[in-house]
C-alpha cells in the first residue's frame, strides 16, 4: 500500500498554496480488454487514437450544448479555483476546476477554434499528445463530478460535464477505467454493481427478515420479485452488501411494513446506481434505466421508489423521464405501457425520503425518538442529491426533506457550518467513479473539507453521528474517517435512524424492557 500523509485538520479550512504536480501519476487502474469490449469500447488503445479522439470530441461537442458553451464562455476569473475539495485537499493546481477543464479546453481550442488554430500559444491551445492524454486520464479521474464548482461559476460552467465528455472520449479510444467499466459489465451481465446473483440476494434478504423478527418480534418482509406489488424499490446494491448501508435497507423495509403498502425488490434490476453517468455515456446510462423500466413492467408495479444513493437519484429524478419516458411525453410502446400502469397521482419516480416524509406528514409513523438519544446527528448533503435533483417538488426540498425525516426520528440534530452544506456541500471525496482502493490517497485528501466541517460540528455541537443518503458517501466515510481520527462507525444511513426510532405495530415489549 502506498504511503501518504493525511492532511491535518486546522481550525478553519485554508486555501492551499499551489503544489504543482503533487497529484501527478498514472491514474487509477485501467480496464482490461474484456471489460472494455463488454461495453462496446475498443479493447486497447487504438493506433490512430489522436484522430479518433478528436473526432469523438467533435461528436460530443455537437451533441451536448453544455460543451461548446462551457468551453467558450470561461473567462478564467478563478471563482471556481478554490471550490473543489480535491484542490483544497491536495493543492495540485490541476485540481482547480478551471485547470481541469483547461486540459479539455486547450485541445478544443487547438482543433475547434480560430484563435487556437492560428495563435495556439496566445490562447493556451495545445495538441492532444501522449502527455496530454496522461494528464487527461489522471486528472479526469480526480474529479468526482460533484458540481460544486458550477454553483460558483458566473456562467454555471459545470466541470462534471467536461469530465464526463473526457471519459467518453477516452473510452472511445480504448482507454477506460477499471473500476467503472468492470462494474458496468457486471450490471449488464448480472443486474447490479456487485455482481451479486439472485440466490445470494434472496438468501441475504431472508437473513435480514430473520434478524428484524429476532430484534422486534415483527415479521417485516423484504420481498423479491413479488409480482403485482404496489411499489418497486430500486436501491443501490451496496444496500444488500455493505455496512452501514444494510441498516438503511432495514429501515426502508420497516417503513413499508408500517405503511401497509406492498412493495418488492427486483432481481433483474437490483441496482439503483448508474455508472453510465460517471463515464458520460448516454447509451449505457439508458440501458441501465431500461432495465428498471422492464422490471417495473414485468412486476406490474404502480410506483417506483429509489433508495439512498446520490447519483442514482440524480439519474432517476433528472434523467429517467428523458431516458425511458417514465412520466409523460414518450411515444414508444413500452413507455406508454408504463405510463398507463404507474399511478400518476404520485410523482414518478419518488425518493424513499419523500415517501417516508409523506407518511410522517400524514401522521402514519410513530417514533420513539429517545432510541436515538445517544446520538447527536449531523447530515451530509450528497452532491448529486444537492446539486442534481429535488425532493418534494418544493424549492430546496432536497435539503429540507432529509433533515425533517432525521428530526422526526432524533432529538439531537446539528447542521455543519454554512458553506459546507446544502447547495455548497462538499463531496465526500469518493463520488463519480473514484470509490476505488487505487485512489485511496486522493479519497483521503479529497475528504478534507468535509472532515474539517465535521470536526467543527463535533467540537461545537457534540456531533457523534454522521447521517448520509448515498451508498458511495457511506462507504467512503467508513473508509476515510479513521484517517482523521474519527470513529468509522459514526456513519449511518438516514433510514437507519428511522429504523431505530420507528415503533412497529405489535413490537414486542421485550425490546422496551431492554431499553429500560
Amino acid at each position, binding site marked *: 500500500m502506498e504511503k501518504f500523509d493525511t492532511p491535518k485538520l486546522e481550525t478553519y479550512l485554508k*486555501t492551499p*498554496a*499551489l503544489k504543482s504536480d503533487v497529484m501527478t501519476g498514472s491514474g487509477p487502474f485501467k480496464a482490461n480488454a474484456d471489460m472494455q469490449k463488454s461495453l462496446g469500447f475498443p479493447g486497447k488503445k487504438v493506433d490512430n487514437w489522436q484522430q479518433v479522439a478528436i473526432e469523438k470530441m467533435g461528436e460530443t*461537442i*455537437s*451533441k*451536448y*450544448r*453544455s460543451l*461548446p*458553451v*462551457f468551453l*467558450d*464562455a*470561461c*473567462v*478564467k476569473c*478563478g*471563482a*471556481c479555483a478554490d*471550490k473543489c475539495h480535491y484542490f483544497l485537499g491536495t493543492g495540485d*493546481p490541476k485540481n482547480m476546476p478551471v*485547470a481541469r477543464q*483547461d486540459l479539455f479546453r486547450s485541445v478544443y481550442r487547438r482543433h475547434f*477554434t*480560430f*484563435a487556437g488554430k492560428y495563435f495556439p*500559444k*496566445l*490562447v*493556451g491551445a495545445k495538441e492532444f499528445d501522449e502527455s496530454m492524454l496522461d494528464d487527461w486520464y489522471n486528472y479526469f479521474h480526480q474529479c468526482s463530478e460533484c*458540481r460544486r464548482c*458550477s*454553483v*460558483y461559476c*458566473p456562467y*454555471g*460552467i*459545470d466541470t462534471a*460535464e467536461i469530465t464526463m465528455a473526457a471519459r467518453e472520449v477516452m473510452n472511445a479510444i480504448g482507454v477506460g477505467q477499471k473500476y467503472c467499466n468492470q462494474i458496468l459489465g457486471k450490471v449488464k451481465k448480472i443486474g447490479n454493481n456487485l455482481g451479486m446473483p439472485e440466490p445470494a440476494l434472496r438468501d441475504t434478504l431472508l437473513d435480514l427478515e430473520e434478524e428484524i423478527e429476532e430484534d422486534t418480534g415483527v415479521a417485516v418482509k423484504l420481498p423479491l420479485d413479488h409480482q403485482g406489488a404496489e411499489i418497486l424499490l430500486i436501491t443501490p446494491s451496496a444496500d444488500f452488501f455493505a455496512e452501514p448501508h444494510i441498516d438503511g435497507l432495514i429501515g426502508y423495509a420497516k417503513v413499508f411494513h408500517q405503511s401497509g403498502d406492498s412493495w418488492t425488490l427486483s432481481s433483474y434490476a437490483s441496482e439503483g446506481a448508474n455508472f453510465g453517468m460517471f463515464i458520460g455515456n448516454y447509451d449505457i446510462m439508458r440501458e441501465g434505466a431500461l432495465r428498471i*423500466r*422492464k422490471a417495473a413492467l414485468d412486476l406490474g408495479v404502480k410506483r417506483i421508489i429509489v433508495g439512498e444513493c446520490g447519483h442514482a437519484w440524480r439519474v432517476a*429524478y*433528472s*434523467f429517467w*423521464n*428523458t431516458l425511458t419516458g417514465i*412520466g*409523460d*411525453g*414518450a411515444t*414508444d410502446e*413500452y*413507455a406508454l405501457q408504463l405510463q398507463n400502469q404507474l399511478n400518476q397521482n404520485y*410523482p414518478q*419516480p419518488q425518493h424513499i425520503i419523500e415517501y417516508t416524509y409523506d407518511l410522517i406528514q400524514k401522521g402514519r409513523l410513530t417514533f420513539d425518538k429517545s432510541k436515538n438519544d445517544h446520538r447527536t446527528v449531523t447530515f451530509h448533503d450528497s452532491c448529486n442529491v444537492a*446539486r442534481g435533483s429535488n425532493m418534494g*417538488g418544493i*424549492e430546496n426540498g432536497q435539503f429540507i426533506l432529509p433533515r425533517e425525516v432525521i428530526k422526526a426520528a432524533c432529538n439531537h440534530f446539528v447542521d455543519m457550518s454554512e458553506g459546507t452544506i446544502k*447547495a455548497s456541500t462538499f463531496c465526500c471525496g469518493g463520488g463519480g467513479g473514484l470509490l476505488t482502493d487505487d485512489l485511496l490517497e486522493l479519497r483521503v485528501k479529497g475528504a478534507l473539507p468535509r472532515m474539517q466541517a465535521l470536526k467543527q460540528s463535533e467540537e461545537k455541537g457534540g456531533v457523534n453521528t454522521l447521517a448520509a443518503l448515498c451508498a458511495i458517501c457511506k462507504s467512503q466515510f467508513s473508509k476515510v474517517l479513521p484517517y482523521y481520527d474519527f470513529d468509522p462507525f459514526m456513519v449511518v444511513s438516514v433510514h437507519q435512524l428511522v429504523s431505530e426510532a420507528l415503533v412497529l405495530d405489535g413490537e414486542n415489549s421485550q425490546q422496551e424492557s431492554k431499553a429500560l
Partner: protein
Amino acid sequence: MSLTSILFTVFFYLAVSLCLVGVTLKVIQYASTPVPLKIPTAPAPLTKFGVILRMMREVFLFSSLFKASKWTWLFGWLFHWALVLLFIRHLPYFWPGETPEILRQTESLRYAAFPLIFGLSGLLARRFFVDRVRYISAPSDYLLLILLILIALTGALMTFAQFYPDMGKVYAFAEGLITFDWSELPSGGIFLAHIFMVFVLIAIFPISKILHAPGVFFSPTLNQVDDARKKRHISDWAFDKEKNSKGG
C-alpha cells in the same frame, strides 16, 4: 478623405462585420446544439419565472460570482457596469441628426471611467498576484485586460486631461459611420489609439472569451427549469435513437 480616415473607416466596418457574423454563427451553433439532459444546478428554479429571475440575478448582479469571491465580484461588477454606462455615454457621438434630450444628459456618466479603470486594474492585479489565477491565465487573458485598460486610459486622458480631439470632427466621423456619410477623422494620436483598440475589441469578440456574453444565456445549468419529473425533456438525436431501438 485622408488615407488614415479611409483605413479607419474600412476597419470599423470590417470589425463590426466580423463581430456580427462571428457572434451570429456562434449563437446559431449554441442554439442548434441539442441539450440531451436536464442539468440545472443548485439552487435550481422549478418554474420558468424562476429561471428568468435567476438569469437576471446572474446577468445584472453576478450573484454566483458574489458567492464565490467578493474581490473578483467587486472588480468584475464595477468594470461591467462602468462599461455599460460608458457605452451609453458614447451614444450621442453616433446619433444621427439632433441628439435626443435624454442622451444629452449623459455627460456625467464619464466618471464611470474611474470605476472602470479600478475594476480592470483589480482584475489584472489578481492575475499577477493570486497564484491560482496566475496559473490559469494564458497570454490572451492578460492582453485582453490590458487592451481594455488602455482603451479606458486613452478615453480618460481625452476627457479629464484636456487632450480633446476636435469634437466637431468626432461627431461627424462617428455619425458618418452610421449614416454611411463618411467624413474626416480628427487628428490626435490618443484619439486614434482609442478607437483603434475599440475596433480591435469588437473584431475579436467572436473568437475570444468575450463569448461569455451570449454564452451565459445558453448555459443549460442556468437556463433550465427543474421539472424533469413533470415534463419530458428529450433531444432529437436521443428521440431518434429511441424510435430505432427495441426498448422494454
